[in-house]
């Protein structure tokens, strides 16, 4: 397995070569280059191409124009729309989805999302109710209804697993991803970036502590760890506020060492045998604890730094509505000291969103500062951010954010990080807007927040997909509803944590399964919107 690159294919003694590609024109050019340079030398090979998730006439035409279409023995599609990441999490991992949908008017990823939802329904039953908020949500719902008509006749006779589907546009809640996530998993992602459920960490903290080693040869290669709920400890701490992780880790450490101490009590052969049988599990738990202790130390180094504290303070001020309408000193200093541009952009966008747009003077000041400091070419990035609505001048001189904040209770002063009672723990005070919408939908219903829904962009709607009587659910008292919530344009780990928190609430009444176009954070999001002309 190789990654797609131009020129010649890597040497390998094989007869068949299969290209797995997204149907994008640029990639076709690379493939054509591969195939053409291949033909000139050596034994002939058989080429096959598999488009993920769908075949594209446009791409095939491109291959034809480049004169290589005939070289492919098989041209098929691998309809992998939604990739399972965890028991309750699916992602299309389509990086460009937000930019395509909101900047370029290209709905390809929405079409794939709708197709993915149809597949999901084919497997888990027709979802009787669809709710949505936002322009893209509306489009996806329309496509689903249309696709359902295309399948008339093949009646789906599967008992529905999901009660509701909630489609949410990312641009309904531009705020949440801009704020720094404060859950354990969210911080790992913010600081090191989780890619396809793997994270690469600086190796120093993971050096094996052997006696007499003297720490001579520290490993230089990044430590790569897989992060998902299959790991018991990670499942327990991933969604906690980082401030609550330390106590769990020390408690675990005590339990594990106590378990190892048990060996002294094992007297009879039977007892020893039982102890030994538990060893692999205990050793795995100890390894897992060691890893997460190291990660927590790494994160703590960052979170206890003065700059992290200052940044968080500014973010929290903005989100709670303090001084959002003037040039912020901290941001100014960050620019003057040439902190990372993405960090600056995240903060400026956050301020803009929390103020329903910036005063023209303030906006122009920030923009000018950014262009003078980081370079004029970033004017294209600024244009993109403006087009996406992340950065904008306040129109009508009215700031709607306070209304939204108060109605949806987005800022909670009395947050309990250790034993949370509200989703706001994931940002130590800020309750993610998107998740609040989901929470209010399940109880007491969106009718209670009509006014705010009208302020937020795009239509909100409800569609029903009638089920044959035999498949209608008779709910047992106390049985939870299951809602599939689909974030069009990406979702953060903190939002996922908040939804899992709601699922686990005893009187919550709703369990969530989460799907998205991309798992992302503010940094990867802004990065995808940046444009570098050289």
């Amino acid at each position, binding site marked *: 397995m190789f990654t797609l690159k131009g020129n010649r294919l890597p040497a390998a003694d094989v007869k068949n070569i299969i290209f797995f590609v997204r149907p994008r024109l640029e990639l076709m050019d690379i493939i054509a280059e591969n195939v053409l340079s291949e033909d000139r030398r050596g034994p002939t090979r058989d080429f096959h191409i598999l488009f993920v998730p769908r075949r594209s006439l446009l791409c095939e035409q491109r291959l034809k124009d480049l004169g290589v279409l005939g070289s492919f023995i098989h041209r098929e599609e691998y309809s992998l729309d939604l990739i399972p990441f965890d028991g309750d999490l699916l992602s299309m991992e389509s990086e460009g989805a937000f930019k395509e949908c909101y900047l370029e008017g290209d709905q390809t990823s929405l079409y794939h999302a709708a197709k993915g939802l149809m597949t999901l329904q084919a497997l888990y039953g027709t979802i009787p109710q669809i709710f949505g908020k936002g322009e893209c949500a509306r489009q996806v719902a329309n496509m689903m209804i249309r696709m359902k008509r295309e399948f008339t006749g093949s009646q789906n006779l599967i008992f529905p697993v999901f009660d509701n589907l909630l489609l949410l546009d990312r641009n309904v809640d531009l705020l949440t991803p801009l704020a720094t996530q404060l859950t354990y998993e969210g911080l790992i992602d913010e600081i090191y970036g989780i890619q396809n459920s793997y994270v690469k960490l600086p190796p120093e903290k993971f050096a094996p502590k052997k006696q007499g080693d003297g720490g001579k040869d520290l490993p230089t290669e990044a430590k790569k760890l897989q992060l998902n709920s299959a790991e018991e400890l990670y499942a327990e701490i991933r969604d906690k506020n980082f401030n609550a992780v330390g106590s769990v880790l020390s408690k675990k450490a005590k339990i594990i060492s106590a378990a190892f101490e048990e060996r002294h009590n094992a007297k009879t052969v039977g007892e020893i045998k039982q102890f030994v049988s538990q060893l692999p599990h205990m050793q795995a738990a100890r390894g897992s604890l060691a890893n997460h202790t190291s990660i927590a130390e790494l994160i703590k180094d960052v979170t206890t730094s003065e700059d992290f504290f200052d940044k968080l303070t500014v973010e929290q001020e903005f989100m709670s509505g303090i001084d959002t309408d003037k040039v912020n000193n901290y941001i100014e200093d960050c620019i003057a000291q040439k902190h990372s541009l993405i960090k600056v952009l995240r903060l400026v966008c956050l301020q803009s969103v929390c103020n329903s747009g910036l005063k023209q003077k303030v906006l122009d000041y920030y923009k000018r500062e950014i262009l*003078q400091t980081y*370079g*004029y070419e970033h004017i294209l990035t600024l244009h993109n951010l403006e087009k996406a609505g992340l950065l904008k001048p306040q129109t009508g001189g009215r700031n709607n954010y306070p209304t939204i904040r108060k109605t949806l209770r987005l800022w909670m002063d009395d947050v309990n990080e250790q034993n949370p009672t509200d989703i706001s723990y994931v940002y130590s005070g800020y309750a993610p807007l998107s998740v609040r919408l989901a929470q209010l939908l399940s109880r007491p219903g969106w009718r209670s927040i009509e006014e705010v829904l009208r302020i937020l962009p795009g239509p909100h709607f409800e569609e029903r997909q009638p089920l044959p009587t035999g498949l209608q659910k008779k709910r047992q008292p106390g049985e939870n509803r299951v809602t599939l919530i689909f974030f069009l344009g990406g979702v953060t780990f903190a939002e996922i944590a908040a939804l899992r928190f709601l699922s686990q609430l005893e009187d919550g009444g709703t369990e969530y399964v989460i799907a998205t176009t991309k798992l992302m954070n503010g940094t990867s999001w802004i990065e995808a919107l940046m444009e570098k002309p050289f």
Partner: protein
Amino acid sequence: MDCYTANWNPLGDSAFYRKYELYSMDWDLKEELRDCLVAAAPYGGPIALLRNPWRKEKAASVRPVLDIYSASGMPLASLLWKSGPVVSLGWSAEEELLCVQEDGAVLVYGLHGDFRRHFSMGNEVLQNRVLDARIFHTEFGSGVAILTGAHRFTLSANVGDLKLRRMPEVPGLQSAPSCWTTLCQDRVAHILLAVGPDLYLLDHAACSSVTPPGLAPGVSSFLQMAVSFTYRHLALFTDTGYIWMGTASLKEKLCEFNCNIRAPPKQMVCTHEFLHEVPAASEEIFKIASMAPGALLLEAQKEYEKESQKADEYLREIQELGQLTQAVQQCIEAAGHEHQPDMQKSLLRAASFGKCFLDRFPPDSFVHMCQDLRVLNAVRDYHIGIPLTYSQYKQLTIQVLLDRLVLRRLYPLAIQICEYLRLPEVQGVSRILAHWACYKVQQKDVSDEDVARAINQKLGDTPGVSYSDIAARAYGCGRTELAIKLLEYEPRSGEQVPLLLKMKRSKLALSKAIESGDTDLVFTVLLHLKNELNRGDFFMTLRNQPMALSLYRQFCKHQELETLKDLYNQDDNHQELGSFHIRASYAAEERIEGRVAALQTAADAFYKAKNEFAAKATEDQMRLLRLQRRLEDELGGEFLDLSLHDTVTTLILGGHNKRAEQLARDFRIPDKRLWWLKLTALADLEDWEELEKFSKSKKSPIGYLPFVEICMKQHNKYEAKKYASRVGPEQKVKALLLVGDVAQAADVAIEHRSEAELSLVLSHCTGATDGATADKIQRARAQAQKNV
């Protein structure tokens, strides 16, 4: 029933043949059959008759007439033959009539006399004319073999996939062979021909002489030969009236006999009588004095109906031999081979009777036989006229039988059969309805609206019905409007779009593609439209379809930048035009003047877009670019494409402070940032003297804590301490801690009475050295507590 075996004839010692009349033919023939060319299709298929085929006169009254009848003689079609003289007729496996003309052209007609197509058997055949022709069937389809006037053979083994093969020459063949036939062995078609007493086998490579084993002597000529339907058996008729029968491979003789008739029949046709070997099961049961279990069971059942105790005797006899299961099976099987419903019933009744005395006899065979016989009886009906045997039906499969009913336009019967057999809709009813609709669209006398409505009423949303297929058929008949109406009912856009494109309704195709949300489909239509329309019309079409427009823009961004510019121009999208020219200034232009020019265009566009900020920023950038070029010329080094901030920094690092100041003034860098900039640059240079001078130039707009921080970053505590004293009270503690003066920090914190500052200092206290300080803080805290 007088005597069931009355129509049985023995063949050899071990087999019987029987013959019975299927239908008394309904046709009204004026000519004798011998004056006609006749072709009957296998598997109870239709019969074609060409009357007067050999008349050469052109008078209309005596022109040849082609009649097509069902197997029961119901007329299906009749047409005047207007083409050339026909040599031979035959039916293909798809029930298409192949008419081989003298000139080698083969005309293909449907069951209803509808002309389908024609093809030629090649130039050689055209030149030498057709002397004789045969239609034959192989597992690949139906073939045509031609004997030309030059006594050469040409054949095609499958008319569906026409590949002509000219067979090798037969040595010394001067006149037509006395008789010939096609054989099919090992999946290859051969020709067997007789020239006087000699037999030759022609394959595509060679001609070989063959001799049938055990042939009686004295044969001077073979007059006729016949091969069985399966190509397994062959019969040869000689001029001595002797018939040889054996395997078609000519390796084994089966039998021979002398019939004392010397003249060969002109043409042998068997249409309304049915001759076949008596199947084993029937033979077992009905053979005179048969004691087979099936025969006994049939007897037992008859006695049972007569309420005679003999029934019990017979039954016991079978049971004692343990053959009851076999008896039931025999009766079921024999019923299948019966043509008369009465006989079928009595055999099935016997089977059902026998079944009662058996535990757990699997019911499937009985149930299926009843179903199959009902279907068979229905299609054998005189009005339908498809006299299939049970074996033929099994070979043909229900799907093919349904196809044949559809071909005869017997849609209601086909649907009834589907419903009776409970076939899945997609294979059954839907398919038939779709065929019906395809036939319906060909009815030219009905208006488009009526046809579309009628079809939709019948088909509705029946699963598996493809409206686009029906529309394609309508389009094929030249009814474009009807096709478009039908496509409206098609829910799958992927199916609508290609046909609409084919019908040159590209704009409609575009809106359908957009409706589907399938962007790939939209792209496909767009590229089609782009080639079909002129540029202006194409752009206008796009303008009305925002989704298509944005997709096309994306396409142009990667593929056709110039077109992208035109699109923005058309929409007066000056903002995007501005961005476009900015990109161009980086990508396309190398020379500084070229870049500046591109930026000027961008700035103009921004002014038009009323984006004052972007326009000004762009003009600043033009100024900066020119300036950077000048700096490179005058000072050397690299300045181009640095940001303004970095340009000033580079100047300071290079010691060009004056120029740096000038630049900062020209571009109005805010004071605060300029201080940060200078501070950072001077510290990088470790020019402490200049830094101190700078710090004293005026009151710092950023305070003095940054000075402390940056000195400490460069590990210069000495310099840091200088600035720490100048830090304002709010940040004093922080500054003192930075330079490591914990004691003084504690004093300040105590003075400030700030709990936060106190704990900050305390956290910096290290055990040994700062013990006293820590105590001091604790005391201050306790004091503060008391005061509260």
